[in-house]
């Protein structure tokens, strides 16, 4: 009975046009008031415990670093270098677009930021290069999704935080699957645009582009090399990324003024101000569910119903695909990961591998209507209708699904860089 009341409350709040944070906050208040001896103040304590966590420090700093780099010219410099490298290859510009997304993803943890940073420059170049509008939009939207798979990745940090899985291991595990997707996108671009070439190698052009990107290229190496070289932790790497981004964009490139820096910081605060309350209330619900033994009960219950790893994998992926269509990646990760991860572990799936499957799967949600965030960002960035953008990404959704199946059923791809994986 109480559960139906809760469902009714959530539906009513959705009809009343309430944001996700209110839905989750009311759900937390409801469960603590009804099921927990009438102690709604526990929800406020959970908010405090959720935001007062050292492990979350990396999120705001990676968000800020990505925002600084996308506002400056680091993205443009990486793109120019990729264009010079891929000039003689058939469909080279398409390959440059995908590689630029991958390159920028290695310094940003967000899909939308990657799409905006690379798409803002590459879209015009692709259209001028004779590539179809549909291909250009699709390639950039799906390339943007690499932003949450290639480390550093905000959703992977959220998954690690909520399931207590090592974030450093999750970052390492993101590399292989990202390479699979890059290869799939690149092969598709190569086949579809085989007749398009920009010309031969240009030594002077290459050297010029290399010189311009000399400060941008080492950034991913500093961030990831620092983490895995044992020089600093993931959190400290995020702080280093911010300082390096400011140093490169403000002092070396001189492309950002202090006023720009202030504006970028406020933009990042806005993004975090929408993420953190969702995270805090999802954490609160998770604390309640765990205290009530819900995940364990679910594992026991579903273990009798699910017949093996393959069936679980198919069911989990189908569920995540549907959820990804209507809920943003962060909220979906925070709500579903604590429930699905124990189930996956009970089926013998490595928690790190499952985290990657989950994020790649929810990443496809960036491309699916009605709430595909990259679709909406692309609409604004490329000034195209929702329908045009949605049609353009359809083949890429198919490619990503194929990639997801490979990543899900070949765990070695995700675990190859992890000791014992």
């Amino acid at each position, binding site marked *: 009975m109480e559960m139906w009341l809760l469902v009714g409350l959530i*539906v009513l709040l*959705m*009809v*009343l*046009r*309430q*944001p*996700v*944070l*209110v*839905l989750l*906050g009311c759900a937390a*208040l409801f469960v603590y008031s009804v099921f927990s001896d009438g102690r709604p*103040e526990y929800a*406020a*304590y959970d*908010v*405090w415990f959720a*935001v*007062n*966590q*050292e492990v979350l*420090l990396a999120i*705001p*700093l990676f*968000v*800020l670093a990505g925002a600084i780099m996308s506002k400056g010219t680091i993205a443009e410099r990486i793109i120019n270098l990729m264009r010079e490298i891929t000039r003689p290859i058939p469909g080279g510009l398409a390959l440059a677009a995908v590689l630029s997304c991958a390159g920028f993803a290695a310094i940003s943890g*967000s899909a*939308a*930021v990657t*799409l*905006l940073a690379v798409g803002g420059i590459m879209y015009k170049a692709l259209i001028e290069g004779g590539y179809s509008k549909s291909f250009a939009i699709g390639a950039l939207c799906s390339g943007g999704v690499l932003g949450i798979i290639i480390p550093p990745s905000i959703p992977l940090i959220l998954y690690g935080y909520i399931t207590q899985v090592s974030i450093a291991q999750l970052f390492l595990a993101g590399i292989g699957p990202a390479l699979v997707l890059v290869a799939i996108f690149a092969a598709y671009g190569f086949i579809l645009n085989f007749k398009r070439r920009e010309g031969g190698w240009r030594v002077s052009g290459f050297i010029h582009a290399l010189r311009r990107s000399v400060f941008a290229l080492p950034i991913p190496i500093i961030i990831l090399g620092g983490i895995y070289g044992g020089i600093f932790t993931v*959190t*400290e790497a995020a*702080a*280093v990324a911010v*300082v390096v981004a400011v140093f490169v964009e403000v002092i070396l490139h001189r492309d950002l003024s202090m006023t720009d820096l202030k*504006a970028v*910081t*406020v*933009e990042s*605060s*806005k*993004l*975090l*101000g*929408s993420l*953190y*309350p*969702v995270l805090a209330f999802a954490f609160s619900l998770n604390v309640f569910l765990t205290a009530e033994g819900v995940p364990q009960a679910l594992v026991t219950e579903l273990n009798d119903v699910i017949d093996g790893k393959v069936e679980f994998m198919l069911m989990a992926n189908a569920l995540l695909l549907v959820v990804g269509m*209507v809920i*943003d990646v962060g*909220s979906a990760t925070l709500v579903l990961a604590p429930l699905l991860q124990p189930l996956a572990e009970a089926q013998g799936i490595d928690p790190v591998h499952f985290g990657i499957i989950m994020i790649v799967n929810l990443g496809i949600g960036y491309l699916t209507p*009605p*709430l595909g*965030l990259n679709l*909406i*960002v692309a609409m*604004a*960035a490329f000034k195209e209708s929702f329908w045009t953008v949605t049609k353009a990404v359809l083949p890429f959704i198919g490619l990503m699904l194929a990639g997801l199946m490979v990543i899900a059923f070949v765990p070695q791809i995700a675990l190859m860089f992890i000791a014992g994986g």
Partner: protein
Amino acid sequence: MSAILAAIGRAERWITIVAFALMAVSLLADVISRRLFMTGLIGATEVAVIGMVAVAMFGIGVATDEGGHLRPRLFDALIPKALDSGLDRAASAVTGLFFTVFAGLSAFMVIQSMGLGDRTEILRAPIWTLQAMIFLAFATNAVRFFIYALRPDLKPSEDLEESSAGAADGDPHDPKTPDGASR
């Protein structure tokens, strides 16, 4: 009323900017100290966490100012257009009420922590002073949404692509400003 909104917004923006700087500088100082002197900077991580709490909580207001909170639109089409204006006011009032309830619960938490004399592990700062940020953030958002309920013209338009990309350059209190249109 727009002056109240602008003043709250300005204060929260500056707090988040300072908090971001605090986080980055304290963590970097910790890394440098560890590499140079073989010992971390005592309390640096705690200072960074305090900065993060400030960004997280006062960022809620920044997101509110710029229509940045994610909202499911599943049922939007069910409501006739004629009811839109009334529903928008009701929505703001409900959100305001939500924040008021959480401001009240946070105030309870702050008073309890004050009574218990809880302090942070390393810097020994009174925990209630940090928890007060949660109360302040919820309270200022409650004020905002009640103002929006009374004056819907002051409410910023929702901007999903903006909220996702974290890009907005326009005046959050001017609904006519095409934030981010330049992108």
